């Protein structure tokens, strides 16, 4: 019995003026059915490229090496048409900015229905609409039967993110990837969306990969954590081990640098530049 997702020695390379650049370099991790994994890192760490690689959504200018296996099937060896089928059906993704992922000219209901019907053949309009309303109810959008006919601009930022989650969940995927899903949201709305993601995971058994720059957010959601720096995984561990006993100098430095709300810690300790030489590249 294999894990839900196995990523082995994943390397993503862009060709640049100055030669090839590995934005993800030899990354490996596994994710069991229903589990949650946090990938944390600063900008340029390669965390978002990792999620795009798993989804098969890398830009054409990128090349990929390594293995990304869903239920034992290597996605990197499949033709695009087969990957497209799996995407949305078995795995779905939500992004930081829901407004740019939604079409302003269509009601949210039409967009959820479209996403659903693209992956379920022989579904009638009426059935799809029912699924859309149910999905919106599941993410606690009040008055879903009426709101389904509203346009994206009629929703607040937090509600739009709920719509995106509803759309992602409509096909009951085994894996949900959330890339900075709360970064653009106010802190009170962020708390609601994080609660919702937890609830969805509990109730549907969907596995979750949460990509974030925010260590505290990751600590609240993820069972396992990968810390990335310059494309390399510098440390991987269960959340409790990673946050209570970080072993890599970069993880330690990053945790020291995070401002805490519960006390003032004098001079914030800085991430030593020499750490670059330890895990990643200069």
């Amino acid at each position, binding site marked *: 019995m294999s894990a839900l997702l196995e990523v082995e020695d994943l390397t993503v390379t862009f060709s640049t003026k100055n030669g090839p650049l590995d934005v993800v370099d030899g990354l490996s991790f596994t994710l069991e059915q229903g589990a949650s994994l946090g990938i944390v890192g*600063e900008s340029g760490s390669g965390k978002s490229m990792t999620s795009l690689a798993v989804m098969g959504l890398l830009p054409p200018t990128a090349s990929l090496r390594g293995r990304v296996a869903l239920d034992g099937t290597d996605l990197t060896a499949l033709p695009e048409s087969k990957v497209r089928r799996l995407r949305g059906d078995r795995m779905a993704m939500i992004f930081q900015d829901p407004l740019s992922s939604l079409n302003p000219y269509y009601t949210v209901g039409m967009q959820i229905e479209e996403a659903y019907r693209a992956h379920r053949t022989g579904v009638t309009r009426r059935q799809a609409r029912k699924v859309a309303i149910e999905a919106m109810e599941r993410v606690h959008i009040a008055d879903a039967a009426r709101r389904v006919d509203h346009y994206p601009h009629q929703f607040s930022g937090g509600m739009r993110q709920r719509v995106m989650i509803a759309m992602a969940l409509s096909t009951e995927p085994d894996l949900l990837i959330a890339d900075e899903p709360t970064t653009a949201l106010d802190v009170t709305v962020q708390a609601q969306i994080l609660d919702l993601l937890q609830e969805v995971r509990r109730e549907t058994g969907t596995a979750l990969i949460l990509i974030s720059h925010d*260590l505290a957010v990751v*600590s609240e959601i993820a069972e396992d954590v990968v810390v990335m720096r310059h494309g390399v995984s510098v440390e991987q561990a269960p959340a409790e081990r990673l946050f209570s006993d970080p072993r890599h100098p970069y993880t330690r430095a990053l945790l*020291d640098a995070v*401002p805490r709300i519960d006390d003032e810690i004098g001079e914030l300790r800085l*991430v030593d530049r020499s750490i670059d030489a330890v895990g990643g590249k200069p």
Partner: protein
Amino acid sequence: MSTTSTGAGTGTEPGTDAPVTGAPATPSRGGPPLLRATDLVKEFAVPGTGGLLGRADTFRAVDGVSLEVRAGETLALVGESGSGKSTTARLVARLMDATSGEVVLDGEPVTHVRGERLRRFRSDVQVVFQDPYSSLNPRHTVERIVTAPLVYQGREVPGGTRAFTQGLMERVGLDPDQFRRYPSQFSGGQAQRIGIARALAVSPRLVVCDEAVSALDVSVQAQIINLLRRLQREEGFSYLFIAHDLAVVRQIADRVAVMSTGRIVEQGERDSVFDDPQHEYTRTLLAAVPRIRPEWERARREAADARAEEETTA
């Protein structure tokens, strides 16, 4: 320490401000208010909802805000999007005109000053913005950017442009040899340092930071927070620090004002606001902030301390 004193010639020395009349609204800790804003209101016209010929409506972004910033302190203005905190900052810095209300700097009403007096006000109050790349002219060198406030005010650059620029760059932790570079040749954190250097060029007494560290990576953010604190220690100016990130505010503020829908709902000493919030909204806001579990934090700190001890004994 700095090699160039940008304060030369202006004679503004914090702490020796002209006496200010009138008692502060919330007396605690000595020191007269450097800046006082009273009952600020800002209304914006919004399209009416009454159809084609519907009358324009007004929206009150800031609704009767009063606050004080004392000499040498940091007042943080916190709130979620739409709370009116940035608009308040813009009114205080005279980047925008208030619908009503009054701003007083050092006892002098500045709400409606123009011309020479407004220019003088601009020497006293400077702003650092969230996005350094959009607030720095991409076609100007560092040298031109940081001396621009002086040039705009028709003031002489003390000690000559080159030396002045390099002195400022050193104070904010930039390589002084890079004075001829353009903003795009710097990283985000470095570019923000240029923005800070520009604010310091005129020896301001109040620096308004509008989400000045919000767009930065954690490791860079820590550097800039430390820099802002060090500069305040060295120069004695005040900050009006606008932020949505409460953890950052905890590190930098002396006092905190919490805004919601255009009003200040709570204001007080930093620790009392964080540890014993009085207003329901403040409590909700504080409770919503994600936290690493305290027991994990404790274990991590103990392990770090043990390691440090081992290193010193070894």
